[in-house]
């Protein structure tokens, strides 16, 4: 990579307030954050720190916030559900703690889902791309299995294959190793490092210091703010 990498995420003065049980909760109190292409960033914080809220905003899952958000150089202006859905579909791959695979679909169908919803390619082409991503994750022998028939590690690898199927600009992982034993967790982190080495932009939310150390950069969130001196 030569020259200064383009910023993928530019957040400035992001605030999020909601009411819970008649009490006003300031979940985020002015977050400024820039993430450049190819970076592997860990967002760390205790539960309730606001790190998940931040992830939802970065992942365009939550459009109710104040402040400015530029994704891939352009401001996120159109916050209509369908516009956000399209952006999530094309530009962001999600990896969740509890995998969030659809239990009634096979691994292949699960992995093909974002491509199918994108609607750019025929169903056969979508499955072909999904098969290729699953092959890279070592799941070629498991294409027709349902998630229930796989180990947790295999499930998370299937979920990563699904996240990559539309070749997104950004991979968002929310506690990707939270439900895994340490050996499997290491496997998953190795895969993420491999993706990072291949040039992917990754953001990983975790509460686990050891996991965060894998990333090249760690941002600490405390009480809805990036804690000073550690960014």
């Amino acid at each position, binding site marked *: 990579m030569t020259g200064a990498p383009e910023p993928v995420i530019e957040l400035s003065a992001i605030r999020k307030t909601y009411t819970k049980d008649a009490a006003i909760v300031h979940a985020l109190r002015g977050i400024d954050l820039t993430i450049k292409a190819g970076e592997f960033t860990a967002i760390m914080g205790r539960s309730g720190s606001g790190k998940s809220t931040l992830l939802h905003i970065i992942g365009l*899952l*939550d459009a109710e916030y104040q402040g400015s958000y530029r994704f891939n150089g352009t401001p996120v202006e159109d916050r209509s559900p369908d516009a956000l859905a399209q952006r999530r*579909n094309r530009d962001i791959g999600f990896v969740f703690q509890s995998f*969030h*695979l*659809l239990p009634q679909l096979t691994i292949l169908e699960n992995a093909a889902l974002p491509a199918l*919803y994108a609607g750019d390619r*025929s169903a056969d082409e979508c499955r072909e791309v999904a098969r290729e991503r699953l092959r890279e994750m070592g799941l070629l022998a498991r294409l027709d299995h349902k998630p229930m028939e796989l180990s947790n590690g295999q499930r998370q690898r299937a979920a990563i294959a699904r996240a990559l199927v539309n070749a997104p600009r950004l991979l968002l992982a929310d506690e990707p190793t939270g439900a895994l034993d340490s050996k499997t967790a290491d496997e998953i982190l190795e895969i993420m490092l491999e993706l990072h080495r291949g040039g992917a932009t990754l953001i990983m939310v975790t509460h686990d210091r050891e996991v965060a150390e894998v990333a090249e950069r760690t941002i600490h969130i405390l009480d809805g703010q990036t804690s000073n001196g550690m960014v």
Partner: protein
Amino acid sequence: MARRATAWFRLLLRFAVDAIVAQRGRSLLTILGMAIGTASVVGVVSIGLLGREYVVGLIEGVGSNLVFAYGTGRGVNPEEIDFDDVPAFVAAVPGIQAIAPVLRTSELVPIKGETQQVAILGVTPAYEQVRNMVVESGRFFSEREDAQGAKVCVLSEDLAIELFGSTYPPDASLRLFGLRFRIVGVFREGVESAAAVQKSEAAGLAALIPFATFRNLSDLRYVDVVYIQSATPQAVPGVVRGVTDIITARHREISNFKIESLDQYLVLAQRVSRAVTLGLIAISAVSLLVGGIGIMNIMLVTVTERTSDIGIRLALGAGQRAIMVQFLLEAAILSLVGGVLGVILGAGVPFYVGWLYGVAVPVSGLSVTVAFTVSVAVGLFFGFYPARKAASMNIVDALGYA
């Protein structure tokens, strides 16, 4: 672009079918509810149509082309329809195919030692066709016998059975007006309905004799009733008007006549049966409504149960529209399958019963179309709210973060 939209739709259709199949037990029960609703609508319309066909058949059996004219009461009415009116009708009113004036009296006839009252009707040979009479045995009298004033008679079925115990009487004669009338045949009404609607003078014990013979032997100056057959059902109103005009022109104003056709009965019967059918449809539509509410209920449960599924799909970039369409399709498929089964049930059972009993049971194509369309519309209507609920879910909550 169109191809892409088709592919998108097919994808959502597949998701919808997958979801229905995944919960087949529940889906079947929902479909059953819709099927019963649809079947009851189709069935009820068939019953209504059957009733209407029966009544209309009765009336048409008497003759829907028939117009009849009569004075409104002997003795009270100064003038009745007279012998000269009849040719005047034929000459002046267009659209008359046949005309049959009837003279009537009655006589006590000894039957098996008892005297019984027998109606004697003087009719022209056209009466047979105009009144839709069936000659059971022998023959009707001819134009020639009528012209000659021959002493022949045709007996009603009832009279023949009373006299001879059979509708095939021996070569015999009957004493009327003090004279011997040779029995040439036995008739019955073409449709029992003539008696049913109480418009038959030939019901019960009756003997028909030639019009001219009656006229020669009796001092009656007036015709009891004139039957006029119009060429087509459409010509009936014109014939009624024409006959009315002639009568008004030829008789004094104070005389009262009735000129009627069965059209009014036909219209009435159709109106009544339509009202009854509509009422029944309204009642059976309630079951369709209940089926629709069943769909909404199931869809709401489904949406709640599949919160996580919906959240995942939304997160992966299925738009609200895709979720909405998927759930609408699920509801529409449930109601469509229910509708098809209902139509098969609602039309099939009447068909089968009709086939068993050799009755042609009418199944209205319209009712099938309507039931079909309505069932899908019900599915979409009652599926809309759950589908919107699914599509507008908060993704973060749906994913289980809340």
